[in-house]
């Protein structure tokens, strides 16, 4: 610890930080633009000038940039010094010279860092009377709006997009006061993390295009802390509602999970909540049309389904409470897993490994600390995008080490990058095709899936001789190298997932176990990705032998008469014929879901279920972290949380309590609840800001007599402006705000230090106890080799489209492709296929678009199932592709963003 004096007051600070960081950590107001907590300092904007004095006798002092000056012991600085203040005011005056006077029609207005800083610095009137420079805007795709006139050239956008997120298509162009931030030509921003530009840009150059279409000011949005349901990472979000519709999602800081950033699926994929495909009324099927169910009929239905002979199929996209309620209703032995059988196998492996002492499941923050990474067969960018962003940061640890050696502080962003050049911590990718992380990979091997499994085991064997041996002679040298890198690392990390079966997970586990045996007793970071938001929760809930296949067999054979399907489209989980025969045979099918699916079309009774923003729920992410997501707004129609339809629990807390005591593995779930009401005089936390407008006019067109404010008996939050403001307890704070700080940059007021935990914050509760000690998995028998025209199958996923619900959001739809099969040029040629042709795949005969990619392993076909009716469960390792005469489909593959797309010959 060091001591510094700021304006005569002594503070204890961390000498590894710079003065700006420490001023903010101490709660002082110092304006800045180019510095960002996760991107370090470059000293570009000159806004954070302070006066520094040599010693106590120095009365003159000199101006320094706080972000470029270390908080070294004994430093004496002044923020209030007149010269420093007038310097800051002059700097902002010059930054504002060409600002276009359009705050009223700017989406950033009201949460604009530039507005805040201008106010803070005291600049009011434009004295400069020459002309303002103007810029033309670009079309940047369905997510982001571009308004270059507003730019103050802080360079944050390119530092984030290029340096932090690894994008290549946004750059600074031209020079002097003509500097322009955009693409080389108009077009969709390619990065999967482009949405963060909205929050990174301190003013309104990059704004949320989808939000702008139904815009509301920040203070008018009703928000609550929520958790993203797009994938298994469980990023923390703050959705905002106005006039009954969900308007936007912004990031909510969680020091352990998502930090400051979200992926574009999470940010733009919520629109299905407002969609017309939503189920909003309980209906029963009468002669192939829906008929509204009365209350007593619903009761009768629930009673009927409570009888013997009913089975329940859970859902990895439903909350723990809903799954638990279904499990309690039908009984443990009648509760079946809601994912495919191959995923069941993977989940069994993941859950066994989760309680193993040898492994540690790293949080996103911990992933950023890894200094050697091996990705085994998983396309992280498309399966768990936020983790791909974290992996990008992990390769910078080499640069950080080099900087420490040269005694350069880590926050000196430009200097650290200059020093490191292309030096990166090793990251190796073993996969069936090139991926979006290849640009940071030290080694990459493109192989068919069985060969990747063998190679994984080979690496394990090379690390520790006690691991079972496997040979893949072709890649012996690379395997040797990767093994050495992992062995030499302080914090190695193995990433695998359930995308392509359990064998890769087992191989990854063997590598981690070999590292564990080889090294000291420390647990090895093993990050196993699962596909959906509550895959882990669902997996813990269902008995291992109760797989979906067994459930469907029970129905087809008549052993079970009725089935309750919870928030699940079975046609995505199992072969069509299998599901068809099961649902046709079942006497009665009850489906609870949010949207219409192929399964709801087969239902006898449909009960509508609320979407993620309409109910309070807990989810468990890939690392076993349970997180609580609050209700943001009321569902306008009759949808209810699934557990409310099927259980007699009065309150979600009751269900959580019962789940803790009755379901094994959930004992620590209750830690995520806010606990006994910690608030003064029992007051609740308002979901609406203290500036929420239009209260007495919003629904005055319907009835001028305002109804009583909606009550929330469920949670500690209220649907009003009144109560104890969330700023008093940031653990339930959705959108940060502090006096003078209207933008999201105000988050520093709620962190215990910059980049630290939120004060009184809640990072979630880790459920898994590390008790078991396991042993190596065996090397699998040699997989079936392709014969004739067959190809090895590798399932491929897309950030925009693979998730069932976000694929129904309008902005996401604009970025989606049709189902396609990715093959290498040689395989295409031998089958007479050209780029964009339509082909049929055997065994199902479904039409897919042919996508010829140079980076796919010859002999392997990547199958992306799209949102069409192709179930990955239909295929078993091998695939045949035939040219089809069918017409090209609607979307095609033009919006596919891969580096190895073969251009058509002209």
């Amino acid at each position, binding site marked *: 610890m060091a001591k510094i004096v700021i304006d005569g007051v002594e503070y204890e600070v961390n000498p590894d930080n710079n003065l700006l960081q420490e001023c903010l950590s101490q709660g002082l107001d110092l304006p800045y633009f180019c510095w960002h907590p996760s991107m370090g300092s470059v000293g570009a904007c000159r806004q954070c000038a302070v006066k520094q004095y040599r010693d106590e006798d120095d009365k003159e002092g000199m101006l320094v940039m706080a972000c470029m000056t270390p908080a070294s012991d004994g430093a004496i600085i002044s923020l209030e010094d007149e010269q420093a203040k007038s310097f800051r005011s002059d700097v902002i005056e010059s930054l504002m010279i060409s600002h*276009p006077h359009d705050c*009223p029609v700017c989406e950033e207005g009201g949460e604009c860092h530039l507005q805040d800083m201008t106010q803070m610095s005291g600049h009011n009137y434009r004295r400069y009377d020459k002309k303002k420079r103007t810029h033309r805007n670009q079309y940047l795709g369905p997510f982001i709006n571009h308004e270059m006139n507003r730019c103050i050239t802080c360079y944050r956008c390119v530092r984030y997009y290029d340096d932090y997120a690894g994008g290549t298509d946004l750059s600074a162009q031209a020079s002097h006061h003509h500097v322009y931030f955009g693409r080389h030509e108009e077009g969709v921003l390619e990065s999967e993390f482009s949405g963060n530009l909205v929050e990174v840009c301190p003013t309104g150059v990059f704004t949320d295009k989808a939000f702008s279409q139904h815009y509301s000011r920040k203070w008018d949005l009703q928000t609550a802390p929520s958790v993203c349901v797009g994938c298994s990472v469980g990023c923390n979000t703050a959705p905002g509602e106005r006039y009954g519709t969900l308007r936007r999602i912004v990031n909510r800081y969680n020091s352990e999970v998502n930090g400051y950033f979200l992926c574009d699926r999470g940010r733009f994929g919520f629109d299905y909540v407002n969609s017309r495909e939503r189920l909003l009324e309980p209906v029963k099927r009468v002669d192939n049309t829906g008929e509204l169910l009365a209350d007593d009929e619903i009761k009768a239905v629930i009673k009927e389904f409570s009888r013997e002979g009913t089975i329940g199929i859970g859902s990895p996209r439903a909350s723990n409470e809903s799954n638990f309620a279904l499990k309690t209703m039908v009984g443990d032995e009648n509760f079946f897993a809601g994912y495919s059988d191959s995923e069941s196998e993977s989940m069994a492996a993941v859950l066994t490994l989760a309680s193993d002492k040898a492994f540690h499941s790293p949080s996103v923050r911990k992933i950023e600390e890894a200094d050697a990474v091996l990705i085994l067969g998983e396309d992280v960018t498309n399966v768990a995008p936020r983790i791909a962003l974290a992996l990008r940061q992990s390769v910078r640890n080499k640069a950080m080490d080099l900087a420490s050696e040269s005694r350069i502080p880590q926050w000196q962003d430009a200097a650290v990058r200059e020093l490191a050049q292309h030096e990166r911590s090793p990251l190796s990718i073993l996969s069936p095709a090139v991926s979006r992380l290849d640009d940071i990979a030290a080694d990459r091997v493109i192989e068919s899936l069985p060969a990747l499994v063998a190679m994984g085991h080979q690496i394990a064997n090379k690390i520790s001789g006690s691991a079972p041996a496997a040979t893949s002679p072709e890649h012996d040298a690379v395997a040797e190298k990767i093994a050495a890198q992992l062995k030499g690392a302080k914090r190695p990390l193995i990433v695998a997932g359930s995308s392509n079966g359990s064998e890769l997970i087992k191989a990854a586990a063997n590598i981690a176990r070999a590292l564990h045996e080889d090294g000291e007793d420390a647990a090895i970071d093993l990050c196993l990705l699962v596909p959906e938001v509550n895959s882990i929760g669902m997996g813990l809930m269902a008995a291992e032998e109760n797989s979906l296949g067994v459930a469907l067999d029970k129905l087809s054979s008549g052993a079970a008469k009725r089935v309750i399907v919870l928030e699940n489209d079975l046609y995505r989980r199992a072969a069509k014929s299998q599901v068809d025969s099961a649902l046709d045979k079942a006497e009665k099918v009850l489906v609870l879901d949010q949207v219409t699916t192929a399964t709801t079309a087969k239902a006898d009774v449909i009960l509508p279920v609320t979407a993620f923003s309409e109910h309070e729920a807990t989810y468990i992410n890939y690392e076993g972290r349970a997180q609580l997501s609050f209700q943001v707004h009321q569902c306008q129609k009759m949808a209810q949380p699934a557990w409310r339809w099927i259980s007699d629990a009065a309150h979600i807390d009751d269900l959580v309590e019962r789940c803790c005591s009755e379901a094994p593995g959930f004992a620590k779930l209750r830690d995520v609840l806010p606990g006994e009401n910690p608030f003064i005089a029992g007051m609740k936390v308002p979901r609406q800001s203290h500036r929420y407008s239009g209260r007495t006019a919003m629904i005055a067109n319907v009835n001028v007599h305002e109804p009583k404010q909606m009550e929330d008996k469920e949670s500690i939050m209220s649907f009003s402006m009144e109560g104890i403001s969330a700023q008093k307890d940031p653990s339930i704070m959705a959108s940060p705000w502090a006096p003078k700080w209207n933008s999201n940059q105000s988050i520093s007021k709620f962190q215990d230090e910059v980049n630290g935990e939120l004060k009184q914050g809640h990072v979630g509760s880790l459920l898994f106890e590390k008790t078991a000690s396991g042993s190596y998995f065996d090397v699998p028998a040699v997989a079936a080799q392709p014969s004739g025209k067959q190809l090895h199958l590798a399932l491929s996923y897309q950030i925009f489209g693979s998730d069932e619900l976000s694929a129904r959001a309008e902005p996401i739809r604009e970025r989606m492709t049709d189902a396609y099969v990715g093959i290498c040029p040689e395989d295409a040629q031998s089958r007479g296929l050209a780029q964009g042709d339509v082909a049929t795949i055997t065994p199902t005969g479904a039409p897919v678009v042919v996508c010829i990619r140079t980076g796919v392993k010859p002999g392997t076909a990547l199958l992306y199932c799209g949102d069409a009716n192709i179930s990955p469960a239909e295929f078993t390792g091998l695939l045949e592709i035939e040219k089809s005469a069918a017409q090209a489909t609607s979307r095609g593959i033009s919006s596919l963003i891969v580096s190895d797309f073969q251009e058509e010959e002209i």
Partner: protein
Amino acid sequence: MLTLIKDTLTSQVVTLWRVFSHLWVKADTVEYPDEMPYMFPRWRGRIILSRDPDGEERCVACNLCAVACPVDCIALQKTEDDEGRWYPEFFRINFSRCIMCGFCEEACPTNAIQLTPDFEMAEYERQDMVWEKEDLLIDGTGKYHDYNFYRVAGKKIGGKDKGEARNEAVPVNVRSLLP
């Protein structure tokens, strides 16, 4: 006792005289509504939405009036035309809540919302005091004749390209190497 009688009599006689003398004084009462009072132009009465000198809606749906309103009686929703001009999809004032404080007018960055000297707003039905944009929007510029927000702001709209707003240079050619 005597004083009391004297005082009482005097008081009553004086009072009678005062009343009597007013027979020749000009009446203060105005025969409203036959006779309309003069209302000062800056009187804060019925709220209107004005148009800019080009005849377009001035309101850009920035929501500042709504947030300034102490009784929260203004609700609106932003929408946008094909060429980027912002305007309110709906704009609603609940006059049964309005306290005519004029904060909305003060907050308005485009001079769109203005208070007028009209105070005759009584209704038999409270529901009739909820006014929508169609009821509020007038055809003129109201009190402020010249201001046209979009001619000043650097956002491109139909009929006004980048660089055509007040005090703007022509758009930069990013590809140019000239200084």
